[in-house]
């Protein structure tokens, strides 16, 4: 086995930014808006770098799909300690229509090409909240998956994953190669150190196109309309439970 871990990172609108919808309701405003690495992707990178520091794996390769700006996200991952990057160039309309299915096809192709031991992804992106890419990637590769991981440990050629599920915690042991998706409590991502920021400058970022990987990125989905959530209205106070039931009936809720 190569001892190589592939980590996918996504460039998303920063979590602290107030999202605005374009006046034509086609999509959200991204021009001039602060972007950063998806927080769950940061956790994924951190886990991979920690595994390398513990000498459990040999190389961390970070992948991002998107236009030129995706390089910034890759550099941030390199500054955190990843060894090299792969920028899968997707621009314009193709990028607007890029979704989990297309990205998982790309990740699967790269996982095979790079002979990866593990693919670690964030559990979901904070822009679309799809929570699909990891699962689809595993399915395309026919690899086991450990999703919503809050704890990982290598046990020989298997990997033990503690998963955060609705009912609590579930522990599974899966064979490698495998796909893992990182949940919030897996780790606390490090701040890039200044020496690593300098070193990141010298690390290689390969540039490929989806076609080079034999991946068709046509989307099966069409976004019809994007709207802001409805404005939160003032609540109403009622005196008794009967009042409450009457009001709910009136509003057609029960």
């Amino acid at each position, binding site marked *: 086995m190569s001892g190589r871990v592939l980590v996918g990172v996504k460039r998303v609108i920063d979590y602290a930014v107030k999202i605005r919808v374009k006046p034509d309701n086609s999509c959200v405003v991204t021009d001039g808006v602060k972007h950063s690495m998806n927080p769950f992707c940061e956790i994924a990178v951190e886990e991979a770098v920690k595994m390398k520091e513990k000498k459990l794996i040999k190389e961390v390769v970070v992948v991002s799909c998107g236009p030129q700006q995706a390089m910034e996200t890759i*550099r941030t991952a390199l*500054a955190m300690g990843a060894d090299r990057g792969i920028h899968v160039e997707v621009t314009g309309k193709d990028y607007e229509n890029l979704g989990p299915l297309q990205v998982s096809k790309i990740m699967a192709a790269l996982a095979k090409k790079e002979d990866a031991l593990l693919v670690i992804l964030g559990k979901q992106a904070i822009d679309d909240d799809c929570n699909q890419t990891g699962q689809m990637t595993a399915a395309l590769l026919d690899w086991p998956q450990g999703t919503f991981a809050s704890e990982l440990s290598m046990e020989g050629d298997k990997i033990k994953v503690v998963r955060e599920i609705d009912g609590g915690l579930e522990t599974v042991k899966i064979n490698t190669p495998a796909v893992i998706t990182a949940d919030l409590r897996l780790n606390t991502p490090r*701040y890039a*150190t*200044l020496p690593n920021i300098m070193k*990141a400058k010298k690390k290689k970022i390969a540039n490929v196109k989806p076609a080079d990987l034999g991946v068709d990125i046509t989307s099966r989905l069409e976004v019809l309309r994007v709207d802001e959530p409805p404005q939160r209205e003032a609540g109403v106070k009622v005196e008794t439970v009967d009042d409450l039931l009457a009001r709910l009936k009136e509003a057609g809720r029960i």
Partner: protein
Amino acid sequence: MAALFKARKALGLCLSCRSFSALAELPETHQLLRQTCRDFADRELTPIAGKLDKEHAFPKKQIQDLGAMGVMAIEVPEELGGAGMDYLAYSLAMEEISRGCASTGVVVSVNNSLYIGPILKNGTEEQKQQWITPFTTGEKVGCFGLSEPGNGSDAGAASTVAQQDGEDWVLNGTKAWITNSWDASATIVFATTDKKLKHKGISAFLIPMPHPGLSLGKKEDKLGIKASSTANIIMEDCRIPLGNMLGPRGAGFKIAMQTLDSGRIGIAAQALGIAQASLDCAADYALKRVAFGAPIGKLQAIQFKLADMGVALESARLLTWKAALLRDSKQPFTKEAAMAKLAASEAATFCAHQAIQVLGGMGYVTDMPAERHYRDARITEIYEGTSEIQRLVIAGQILKEYQ
């Protein structure tokens, strides 16, 4: 001869082209550094800055974290444990850290510019290993003992004395207003070794802390930057080995002045951070506070204030970056550093003052950070060279150009 002159001019143009493009858009590494420091400040400093101020608490954990990131020794080469970056990087880091917490900013600045700076420039290899490397990790911080109760701006009149006694130097005297004093593990002290030579008879010394013969005065109760400790350092027959002299005998004044030139860039950046934090506070409030039927940001009176704050801040920032870029390309930067410190510190007090005004009553209470920025900003016009001294330095440099 003419060819040599042309070539040198071309090289100068090359260097200034690099400088100008950096003023317009920072290099990628520096952008990443700035973002990293900003994220650290937003997540780790801003939430606790008010508490640190109220409790006069030294940000020990945050300084350790910054040390791990390499921020406590930005210019120090990697072999000695530093980040191996340039002064532009230092200015960016200082601004972002100070924007989160001005006290943390001054701790970082004193360690980088005033303590490590002169040792890096004037120390022997042994001294660098002993006195720099342990101070790069955030575990230990250093301080800079120049000012005395009897002289601040009048640095040439150092009354602290150092006398040789066998294999030791014995120091006697008091240093005043020393930042980091209560939290430091070492200090640089300037003392007179040859009174007859006046300012050419001052030498620099390295003293570990704690040390027999060295004691600290009470912590000053300051208006601002309360989380950083400021106190007198008192030396009574304080004995240190001969090898603890930094640089040649009599070079102390020159070392101090050179050190302060660079330190000015750090303090200018700290002032920028305070100014930016004030502007952020004021602009955010102006968009939310409704009066006369609309957010007050719609009123010209408020808009003019924000515009003036923006101009003061941005021009000071460009001066600071220019000073840093000149220093990085090994060109003279004394005038620009003094200009940067003067402009930035006056911008900080101006922006903080106007921010309180924009916030009205809310600016006067501790619920909002505006009052802390006002208190923190004030010292930037005083330490590391008062605004009056900066003006003298600038005028001196300008007049030199015409002679």
